[in-house]
């Protein structure tokens, strides 16, 4: 302990003794650490947001049946292909017991919602209560749909926070009020939770806020005037039975569609796989940047240490002559290198914080890096590693010096 402490003190004294030279080396490490921290910040922010989006889009147990054009062989039957219907949804519920929740959806992409001269273009969907569980929506105020709403094709609507924001005065309670959709007043029975995950100042979950849900029966009979579904989402009872459920659902749908494969049954595994492969390539790229920065910092430190040892041959000889073991000398120089790189590391983290804040103000929201707390540890670990690695070789050289040769050195 006493040696480690005196090693650091001694290191600081040496650094102070060669201000310009040390400053250049510290700058080397500083740039290396700063680029590391900013890169890590970019990656952390980017992947954290992506991962949260994946979760919010339904997670792994989610299965989707989506329409798909017929294969070339089946193409002549195209006129017979009707796509998904409510009958398909019923068949799936009856015949595939491992489907825990089912959500047939009719998506009326950009739909105009108006009220007292205010209007909002959002995304109206005809749904069942299944959507709340599968796509992770939560009714914050009011209620979900009742069986009566479904059976009566009732004109009721559940709206997201963006709809509220755009069609109502601040502070006004939308529950119990009417909102016009497709020229028909709908009674607001529920308001969804506000979803938010900021990436910089950009809310990456805003797509969950600009929706408006009406009963699927209402959408089919009064708005779309056909019961063709946009897609069917399902949730497997258990992750271990995911494959089984996918196969069963595909069979039932093939049966329903008289063998026409005008659909595809897919899971989130694919988007997860693309998430994983993108992340892997970023990690490789990030590691390459880290490696180069480490190398640059290391070269800077090693260069300084070698120069310093060359100048201090006599000092090394004196220390050895009065009882320093080779290990004492070795640790003295490693401690110096680490002190140097820690100073650079601290400066680097400082620069990175300033850079991230600066970039956050200049770059468009959504592409600015985030300051992940792990970045500080990365910076710290990085500079210690650079210091130790770059210090070892010069320190070994110093420890090997023959005391009498060193003392004779002029």
């Amino acid at each position: 302990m006493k040696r480690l402490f005196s090693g650091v003190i001694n290191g600081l004294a040496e650094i102070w003794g060669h201000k310009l030279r040390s400053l250049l080396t510290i700058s080397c490490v500083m740039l290396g650490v700063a680029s590391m921290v900013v890169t890590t910040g970019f990656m952390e922010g980017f992947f954290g947001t992506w991962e949260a989006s994946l979760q919010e889009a339904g997670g792994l147990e989610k299965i989707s049946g989506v329409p798909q054009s017929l294969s070339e062989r089946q193409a002549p039957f195209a006129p017979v292909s009707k796509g998904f219907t409510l009958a398909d949804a019923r068949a799936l519920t009856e015949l595939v017991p491992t489907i825990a929740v089912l959500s047939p959806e009719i998506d009326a992409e950009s739909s105009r919602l108006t009220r007292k001269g205010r209007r909002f273009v959002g995304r109206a969907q005809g749904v069942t209560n299944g959507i709340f569980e599968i796509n992770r929506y939560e009714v914050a105020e009011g209620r979900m749909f009742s069986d009566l709403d479904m059976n009566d094709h009732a004109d009721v609507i559940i709206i997201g926070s963006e709809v509220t924001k755009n069609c109502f005065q601040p502070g006004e309670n939308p529950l119990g009020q009417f909102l016009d959709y497709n020229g028909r007043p709908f009674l607001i029975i529920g308001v969804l939770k506000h979803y938010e995950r900021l990436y910089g100042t950009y809310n990456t979950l805003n797509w969950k806020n600009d929706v408006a849900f009406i009963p699927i029966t209402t959408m089919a009979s009064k708005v779309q005037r056909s019961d063709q579904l946009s897609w069917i989402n399902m949730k497997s009872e258990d992750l271990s039975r995911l494959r089984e459920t996918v196969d069963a659902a595909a069979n039932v749908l093939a049966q329903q569609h008289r063998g026409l494969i005008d659909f595809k049954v897919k899971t989130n595994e694919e988007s997860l796989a693309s998430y994983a492969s993108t992340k892997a390539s970023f990690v490789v790229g990030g590691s390459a940047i880290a490696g180069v920065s480490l190398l640059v910092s290391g070269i800077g430190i090693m260069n300084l240490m070698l120069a310093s040892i060359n100048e201090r041959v006599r000092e090394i000889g004196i220390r050895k002559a009065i009882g320093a073991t080779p290990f004492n000398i070795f640790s003295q120089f490693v401690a110096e290198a680490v002190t140097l790189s820690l100073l650079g590391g601290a400066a680097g983290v400082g620069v990175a914080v300033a850079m991230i804040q600066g970039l956050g103000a200049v770059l468009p929201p959504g592409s600015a890096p985030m300051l992940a707390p792990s970045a500080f540890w990365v910076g710290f670990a990085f500079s210690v590693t650079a210091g130790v690695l770059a210090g070892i070789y010069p320190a070994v050289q110093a420890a090997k010096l023959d005391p009498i040769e060193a003392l004779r050195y002029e």
Partner: protein
Amino acid sequence: MNSVREVLRLDRVGKRYPMGDTIVDALVDASFTLNEGEAVAILGPSGSGKSTLMHLLGFLDSPTSGEVIFEGRPVAALTERQRARIRAEKIGFVFQAFNLLPRLSVRANVALPLAYNSAPPADAEARVDRALELVGMTHRAHHKPGELSGGQRQRVAIARALVNEPRILLADEPTGNLDTKTAAAILDLFQELNRLGRTIIVVTHSPEIAARFKRQIHVLDGRVTEGSA
């Protein structure tokens, strides 16, 4: 006869420097024994091999022939680490060229051996104070060596050699830069340490100084002979 313990022994030690085509024999067939508690003066003209001999005795250098034996063990068989430990614990060395570290203060220079010594850090301060006091350099403790006179630097070098309270003191011309009065004080100090049982080996040019020691070793052209001043 009371029992004497052998500390250092040279057995036909030679040191030869290759100098291009010629060779310099700095030391030839040197053999003698130093016992615990002895006080020895080493005499000889400039270039005769005194410093070479001292370096071998402090195992800073290794002989080209023969053996140096420390407390019965051949030094050549010790690892560098073991040699360093012995230097740190048992030997104090005063260099002819002082060899102070220019960037450290007088105090830090004197304290240096304690960093490599097993002495408890608690009394480090007290030991440094005492060593500085012994050579009368307390008032310059916070100066750098560059701000001192030759004699003052020499005294700091002596304080550094004494700080770890070594059993063996090897001093290469420790009074060369001192006036007669200061030199006498330092020699009194050495004699006092010797009276307390320390082994003292001092290189000197001066027969008067050599006469104050019980034993004299003469070096002439690398050859060692016992003799009186």
